[in-house]
Every structure is written in structure tokens, then in C-alpha cells.
């Protein structure tokens, strides 16, 4: 188990170092997040729908599409000089490889979300002070689920033509359950409702995470092995 985690960390650290060196994907995702929130801010009629009703949907749609940029780049890195082939010849286990990619993707998406959330608060004037901790918890819970599925699918489509488009088409249907749950919990938190009202959705998010992290860890090797 320790060896598995050590290998996963080695892969994740390499991915993060590469992203730190190039900064192309992270800058694109952050700019994308800022642009989408700006467009929604100026494109909505504040007298028609209240921020508390519309805000959670905007927040989660923004996070979802920004995360797609991260997921697309996860295995693109490995196409350069066919590094993926080298990884598959090496003794690194497929589970370690998946967990390494998952870790790097989670870090990447967390950075995007940590920029997106303050911008959301700024643009939409949403009071998050009292619910910041539970809100961060919900974001973490939902992000883990959809990044777990997205990491698996990004490996699946990487050798196909139109990989970037295919990833979105394959992934979005799988994101519906965590997105619904995340939007509902966020709406209740921002509306000042007690967290106990959202226990069902929180359980759904937790179950989704457990099921899809486990399933993706098991299925990953079928996506990369010839």
C-alpha cells in the first residue's frame, strides 16, 4: 500500500511540476472561470431571479466546465514523446497511475475553485461568511466525485480523435447526480437553511465518491492497457 501511494505521489508531483512550468492549462481554466462568472453577472436580470436561487447553478456549471479543461490535459501530458508507453512498461501499478492523475487533477481543480469562489462571492454579493466551511466541504465532496470519473474518462478517450469533445459528451451524463446534489446543498447553505435539510444530498455525494473512486481505480487498467 505504501509503495502504491509513493508511486501515485511521484506521478502527481511530476504532473504538477509540468503544469507549474507551462501554466497553460491552469491559466486557461482560471481565465475561463472569471469570464463565465463575469458573463453571468452582467447577463442576468437581478430583479427576475434571486441570487440565492440562481447562484448555486452558476457556480457549479462554472466549476464543472473549468474542471473539464483540467481533465483534458491530464493524459495529454503523456502523449508527448509517448511517455504513457514508458509509464506502462515501468513497474508502476495502474492503480498508482490512476491515483497519481486523480491527485494532480484534484489539486488543479482546487486551484481553479479557490479562485472561482471568491469571484463568485464578489460578483454575486453572496453572504458566505457563516457557511464558508460547510460550503468548502461540499465543494470538496462534489469535486472528488466528478474528478474521479473525469480522470477515468480522460484516459479512455486520449487515443481517440476529438478527445476533448468526446470527454465532455461522455462525462456530462455521469456528472448529473453530483451536480444536482451539489447545487441543492449549496442553495440551502446560501439560503441560510440548516445543513440537516441537505443530509440526503450529502449522503448521495459521499456514496457517489466511494462508488466511483473505487470503480474507476478498478477499471482504469482497461483504459490504458492494449
Amino acid at each position, binding site marked *: 500500500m505504501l509503495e502504491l501511494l509513493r508511486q501515485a505521489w511521484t506521478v502527481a508531483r511530476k504532473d504538477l511540476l509540468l503544469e507549474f512550468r507551462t501554466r497553460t492549462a491552469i491559466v486557461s481554466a482560471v481565465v475561463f472561470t472569471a469570464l463565465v462568472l463575469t458573463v453571468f453577472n452582467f447577463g442576468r436580470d437581478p430583479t427576475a431571479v434571486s441570487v440565492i436561487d440562481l447562484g448555486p447553478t452558476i457556480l457549479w456549471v462554472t466549476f464543472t466546465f473549468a474542471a473539464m479543461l483540467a481533465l483534458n490535459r491530464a493524459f495529454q501530458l503523456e502523449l*508527448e514523446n509517448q511517455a504513457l508507453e514508458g509509464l506502462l512498461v515501468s*513497474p508502476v501499478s495502474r492503480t498508482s497511475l490512476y491515483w497519481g492523475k486523480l491527485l494532480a487533477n484534484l489539486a488543479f481543480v482546487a486551484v481553479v475553485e479557490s479562485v472561482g469562489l471568491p469571484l463568485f462571492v464578489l460578483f454575486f454579493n453572496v453572504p458566505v461568511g457563516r457557511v464558508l466551511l460547510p460550503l468548502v466541504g461540499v465543494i470538496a465532496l462534489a469535486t472528488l466525485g466528478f474528478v474521479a470519473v473525469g480522470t477515468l474518462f480522460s484516459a479512455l478517450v486520449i487515443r481517440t480523435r476529438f478527445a476533448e469533445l468526446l470527454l465532455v459528451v461522455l462525462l456530462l451524463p455521469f456528472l448529473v447526480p453530483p451536480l444536482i446534489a451539489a447545487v441543492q446543498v449549496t442553495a440551502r447553505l446560501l439560503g441560510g437553511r440548516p445543513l440537516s435539510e441537505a443530509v440526503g444530498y450529502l449522503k448521495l455525494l459521499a456514496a457517489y465518491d466511494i462508488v466511483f473512486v473505487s470503480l474507476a481505480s478498478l477499471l482504469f487498467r482497461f483504459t490504458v492497457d492494449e
Partner: protein
Amino acid sequence: MLLADGLRHTFGGGRVVALDGISFSLAPGRTLAIFGPNGAGKTTLLKVLAGLIRPQAGSARVDGGRRAIGWIGHQSHLYGHLTVRENLLFWGSLYGLDAARRSARAADVLARLDLSDRADQPVWSLSRGLLQRAAIAKALVHDPTVLLLDEPFTGLDLAAAEQLRALLGELRGGGGGGGGGGRTLVLATHNVDEGVELATDVAFQRRGRFVHFAPRGTRSAAEVAAAYRRATADA
């Protein structure tokens, strides 16, 4: 020790036969040079030996498993935005070398491949020949006992190719690298002149079959080339 037993593999639902019942074994210190035209199945054979492709029939075994294999494919497997040294340290870490050992191994292979002065240069800035040398350094960093080389001389100038031949000869004999005994080398190329001097055993592959497999003995490159032409013409 490397063992292949009845390897068979096809692509395109059986339309393209890449491997058709290939069997051989190779002891430590031996170098098998596989010659064959493009599409003969040489790369598929090496990929099966490396564990990249699971054959549809037969089996391949390398003593020591994946950790024992050094693989040089058509591409370098190096990350362009990392330096040569960072790449070597990353691959060394994946092969389970501790920090001190991978630093020492990286320094050693960089020196042996005359890359020490390029160690802190990003890989994207290397020329084709330097990139190939860096790829070889990557394949050697974990001190493998079996080296699988697919067209390793591609992109090298005459001096670099000669240097690589000398290095491979040294590796086969167990000279340096801390590996102790000799290594097993399998070298695939379509050019008989490349690598024939290194070979202790020679195979000619055509349409997924070994049409000739024998020790090279005292045969010269010209004699091997003539035998290759005869064998591939007759097959």
C-alpha cells in the same frame, strides 16, 4: 533470462498477423538482433516482451519482471518541460530507487552518455541525436538486466551511432552500471548494417514469423545481410 513461447498476435480482427508462433529463449549476456522489413512485426514482438501488449496466444517471461526491463521505443518517453536530470530522477523514482541511489544512477548514466553538460537543459531544447541519447539514459537509469531496443540508431549521426554500439557492447558484457553479470539485449531494426556487430544471435522476421534464428557465429555483416536477403526472399 528472456523466454518467448508460441507468441501469436493479430490486429484488425485477424487480418494483420503481427506474430505467428514465435518462440525463443535468450540467456544473460546474449544479444539478439532481429532484422525484418517494415511491418514484419518486430515492434509488436518487443512490445509483447516489454508487457505493453498481451499476446493473444503464447507467453513471454523476463526474469525480474518489469523492474528488469529497459525499453527504448520509437519515442523518447521524456517530458519536454522537465530537464534531462529531472526526467531521469522521475523514472528512477518510479522504478523504486531511493533518492540517493537515483541521483547517483542519473549522474552515472548522464556521464556515460556524454550528457552531463546537458543535464539541466529542458528536453524540448535537445536536438534529435541528443534526445535519443537522453532516451537511452532514461532506459538505463534503473540498471535493467534486459534491454529491449526498437530501432535505437534512428536519428543518430555516425559518431553517435558508433558510441551507442560501444555502450551497448559494454552493457551486454556487464561492464559498469553496477549490474554485475551481463545483460540480455534484444535489438530490432530493418537495417542489417546496424547492430549486427553487437549480435550474438540473429533472427530474420517476416510476416510475424522468424524465418531464420541462429547464433551469428563468425559471420560478418555482409554475410548476415546476404543470408537475410535469401531468407526473406524465400519466405
